[in-house]
């Protein structure tokens, strides 16, 4: 077992365990904070996959942005001053059925993945990821990049529009 393997398994277990907490925890605040470890583990997986820029983006946007938003959302939509926050579940029957179906799906996919002979070709290890990404964003993917930036702008404005406090009209 080399170092990479140990690190991979460590983070894989971290991801799966914390994702399980996210999904199965009754306390929605626990879910939100467990998401932190999922995101962090995923960032570590990115580093293992030589995507350092993406790993840092993951930390910055997912943890510094989205997770904070989610925590705020949780706090604003529940009684925040108490520490026990429950989130409702569907009926037991439905949970069983969906759980079983998804478990079967996951296992099938897993088995399928491990049996499929993927066409793998190791790409040459990159010394610097940021400049190729930048170059690519501004050449091949320029349109998508611009569209994404417009989308972000619209999302900011739209979110502010939807969530802002309305004056009481009556």
């Amino acid at each position, binding site marked *: 077992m080399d170092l990479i393997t140990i690190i991979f398994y460590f983070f894989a277990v971290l991801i799966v365990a914390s994702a399980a907490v996210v999904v199965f925890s009754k306390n929605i605040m626990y879910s939100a904070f467990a998401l932190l470890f999922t995101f962090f583990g995923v960032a570590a997986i990115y580093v293992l996959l030589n995507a350092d820029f993406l790993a840092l983006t993951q930390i910055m946007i997912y943890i510094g942005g989205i997770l904070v938003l989610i925590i705020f959302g949780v706090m604003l939509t529940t009684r925040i001053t108490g520490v026990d926050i429950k989130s409702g579940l569907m009926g037991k029957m439905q949970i069983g059925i969906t759980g079983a179906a998804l478990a079967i799906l996951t296992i099938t996919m897993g088995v399928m993945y491990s049996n499929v002979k993927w066409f793998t070709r190791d790409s040459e290890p990159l010394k610097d990821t940021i400049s190729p990404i930048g170059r690519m964003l501004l050449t091949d993917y320029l349109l998508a990049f611009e569209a994404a930036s417009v989308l972000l702008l619209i999302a900011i404005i739209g979110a502010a529009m939807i969530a802002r*406090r309305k004056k*009481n009209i009556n």
Partner: protein
Amino acid sequence: MSETKRIEFEYSQIDSERMRLNVGPQHPSTHGVLRLEVELDGEIVTEVVPHIGYLHRCFEKHCEKMTYPQVIPYIDRMDYISAMNNEWPYVMGIEKLMGIEIPEKVEYIRLIFAELNRIANHQIAIATFGLDAGAFTPFLYLFRDREFILSIFEKASGGRLLYNYFWVGGLAADVHKEFKQDVLAIVKQVRETNKEIADLLLYNKIFIERVANVGILPADVAINYGCSGPVVRGSGLAFDLRKDAPYSFYDRFDFDVITGHGEVGTVGDCFDRNIVRFHEMEQSCRIIEQAIEQMPMEGDVREKLPKKIRPPKGEIYTKAENPKGELGFYIVSNGTDKPERIKSRGTSFVNLSVLPEISKGYLFADLIMILGSIDIVLGEVDR
């Protein structure tokens, strides 16, 4: 940037949870054991309910069991920041009841000490107000100067905080020989420090932003609530008992009544209340300088009085301009050596009652500043 107006309530459809917050009785900036029950909508204060009485010491009940001179140490402990000023109206009242004439020297010493104590009180008021805003260093500079003033008091009376110095018919002890030079040196020091404080704290942009347009108290509301002292003068009303109903020798001196005039914001905001205190220190310095010039150094400081002080049957209400406002004592004498009833008009008690009125609709941080700008002492609120 400074348009921090009173935020109008927009009772939005977001039923954002109202948070009830207990500020105090143990909180760094309630200036004692005051408990405020605050209802917050986010950070906006929607309701303030002061709960007082944590420091209640049954002052008025005690007075009924005490002889007249024994009451004075209890009075010291009302507004313990300006104990000299506290003693004065009480002593004046009994002297008026008994018809005692006070030697001129005593009156001058009392006046000088009262004004020095006014400076000391305002120093604490400004210092703690700065501390509420998070500025720690000016706090210590002002406390340093206050210690110099207290040293003078100590040389005269022996106490640094609670003096028991103004006695019926005179003073507890004579002042020391170098009294005049010492006082003048302190006046000089106070002026120097005040310059620094103005630059370091009062006219600092951040501080101005914190206090301007916050906690606006209109003059008519202030009068209706019975506010006095810098609180009402900050609202632009020149109500000063030293000018309006001159007692002692205040009519002999030339000084101005400082009023707030909305220097950086609206008239009657926290800045005005605070800056009134600041400029009053300068006026006190002027009074002290004039008094030092006129004061005789020779003479006795105590009238010959019977061993037991027995004012005739009667009632009197004496008031004086305390640093915090009008302090009055309603003394009812029944002819014995113990008072029938002493009712005190606690300045802070009255001033504090205005807090719920002026703090609604501001942010929680502003509530702390408003409380600081009223300058209360819980010893006087709870008595």
